[in-house]
């Protein structure tokens, strides 16, 4: 619960037991975000069941407004929008999660090694991380995706390969801070094996932060997937939300006034990204609580002076 003197946001996770539960339930934002994500996950898993019609069946030649049979109408190609939407959920969530996992594994490993080993290894690894932090991510993904071809697997790997850098920095900072802590040094001085220190102390302090960061990365990954598919680099054989947005543009949905084609996919992406973002941020807040207005310590106040304290009848 103390900030490190170097200024990076590091956290102190007080107990091992119960941390996981606290991480998930400790914050209203987290609960809200995770529940929303859960709903979307459910929709994605049940897609084949809840889609009103098979995805690849065309019903008409063009746009058709929502009806009881097709609650979100038909798009320019005659496909049922709702079906495409729920199937798109599968793609987006799958790509988002796996890409985030890839990024977490790469970033976590590099950050961990850099923080634990230190020295020149740390210097080299962090240099590389810095390059990847500066190089614009989406353009790099575009080039890589264009080269490696349009399969879902490739997209997932590409996204993960570009997004690992910020995780690496975060994990490195946390690992380094944990190792500097007095109690860890004491344990080491007592002759504990590196493995012991690692599993009993370093890992429990690092893992919750990694989890929170991964949730945030899911948001970024879904966002990235939307961009990539929108630009035509996604897997052409599956539906994804980014693809639906592209179709809306290409099929002239705007001109045709077909709001039922334009609104749903973007709305879906927004909601999922929102959910993941607030869940991840909520988790980070749980791990690293910031001063809130209500808990003013009278002895040494941080005064919030921009309300007239006495402007009351």
């Amino acid at each position, binding site marked *: 619960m103390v900030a490190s003197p170097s200024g990076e946001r590091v956290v102190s996770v007080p107990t091992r037991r119960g941390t996981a539960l606290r991480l998930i339930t400790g914050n209203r934002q987290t609960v809200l975000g995770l529940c929303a994500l859960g709903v979307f996950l459910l929709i994605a898993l049940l897609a084949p069941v809840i889609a009103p019609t098979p995805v690849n069946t065309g019903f008409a030649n063009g746009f058709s407004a929502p009806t009881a049979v097709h609650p979100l109408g038909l798009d320019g190609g005659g496909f049922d929008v709702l079906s495409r939407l729920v199937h798109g959920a599968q793609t987006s969530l799958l790509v988002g999660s796996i890409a985030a996992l890839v990024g977490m594994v790469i970033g976590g490993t590099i950050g961990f090694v850099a923080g634990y080993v230190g020295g020149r290894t740390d210097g080299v690894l962090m240099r590389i991380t810095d390059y990847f932090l500066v190089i614009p991510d989406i353009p790099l993904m575009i080039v890589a995706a264009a080269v490696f071809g349009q399969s879902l697997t490739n997209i997932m790997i590409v996204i993960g390969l570009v997004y690992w850098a910020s995780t690496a920095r975060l994990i490195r900072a946390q690992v380094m801070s944990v190792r500097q802590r007095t109690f860890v040094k004491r344990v080491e001085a007592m002759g504990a094996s590196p493995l012991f220190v690692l599993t009993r102390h370093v890992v429990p302090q690092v893992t919750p932060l990694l989890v929170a960061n991964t949730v945030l990365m899911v948001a970024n990954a879904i966002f990235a997937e939307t961009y990539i598919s929108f630009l035509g680099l996604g897997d052409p054989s599956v539906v994804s939300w980014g693809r639906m947005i592209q179709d809306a543009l290409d099929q002239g949905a705007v001109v045709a006034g077909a709001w039922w084609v334009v609104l749903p996919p973007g709305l879906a992406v927004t909601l999922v990204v929102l959910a993941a973002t607030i869940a991840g941020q909520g988790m980070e807040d749980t791990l690293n609580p910031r001063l809130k207005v209500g808990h003013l310590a*009278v002895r040494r106040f941080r005064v919030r002076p921009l309300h007239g304290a006495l402007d009351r009848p």
Partner: protein
Amino acid sequence: MTTSVTAPLLEVRDLGVDFDIGSGQLHAVRGVSFVLRARDRLGIVGESGCGKSTVVLAMMGLLPPNAEVSGQVLFNGVDILAGGDSSMRPHRWCDISMVFQGAMNAFNPVRTVGDQIAEPIRMHRKASRRDADKRVGELLDMVGIPASRAVRYPHEFSGGMRQRAALAMALACGPKVLLADEPTTALDVIVQAEILQLLRRVSDDLGVALVFISHDLPAVAQVTERVAVMYAGRVVEEAPVSRLLTAPLHPYSAALLAAIPRPETAAAVCSIPGEPPGLDTTVIGCAFAPRCVSVLDNCRITEPPNIFDGEGVIACHLATSAGLPR
């Protein structure tokens, strides 16, 4: 000592401050009253958490939004708390100004010191840049800083110099009352002595009434003529400095005196056992009763009234003076 017939410049009547912290209330100040006349020098001492800083912040209307203030603060007979922030604002800095605790941070790091001292002058007195700069030079001179330093940034000043600059800034508009909240804490002893001397000199030369808040009784004694001792949000004793140092009436004042380490004797340092009541508790009877060596049964039941004994105020059941309550 002076039974002055001049009207009070600043009068605080039964000031109370509660903080609403969602899960309850903190009672920081529980009824503080004192009077300040022109050129008076009053000290307020007490341990951390007794509410002394809260009192002065309340006097200037600078408390956070969750503070509820009761009581009156009369400046020249007019209650300046009554109208809210807008009625307080015209009095700020030109009538009452303040040197804050930790004045090191009172300056904005990205603006020059001279600029910030000039700011209230240009605002309140509508002075031109040239006139304001001239005045800044005079002020800096008065506190012993070369005027050429006005164009420097706060981080280029040492702690002691920043404290002086903060004092110069507080005097910029020629206030009639200066509130100095722990002006010497966090400074080394030599610088402390210089600041104390400066405060005295400034008060004499400019005729500014001074309220000096500190936990450091000896420091306060050097500068002020009267001292009010606060405990748990109340003034337990107010007396001329000389009397307080030699014959304190309230057991807490006596204990405070006894707790001052005296290296010249071999006497052990005596601290006061126990702790002040928590700010969220409602106190029954005298707040000091649990720690008082001369406690009476009545002390735990009835809150001692303020008794005015001609020289000062005492809030203690032990006071035998039969004077009227204030």
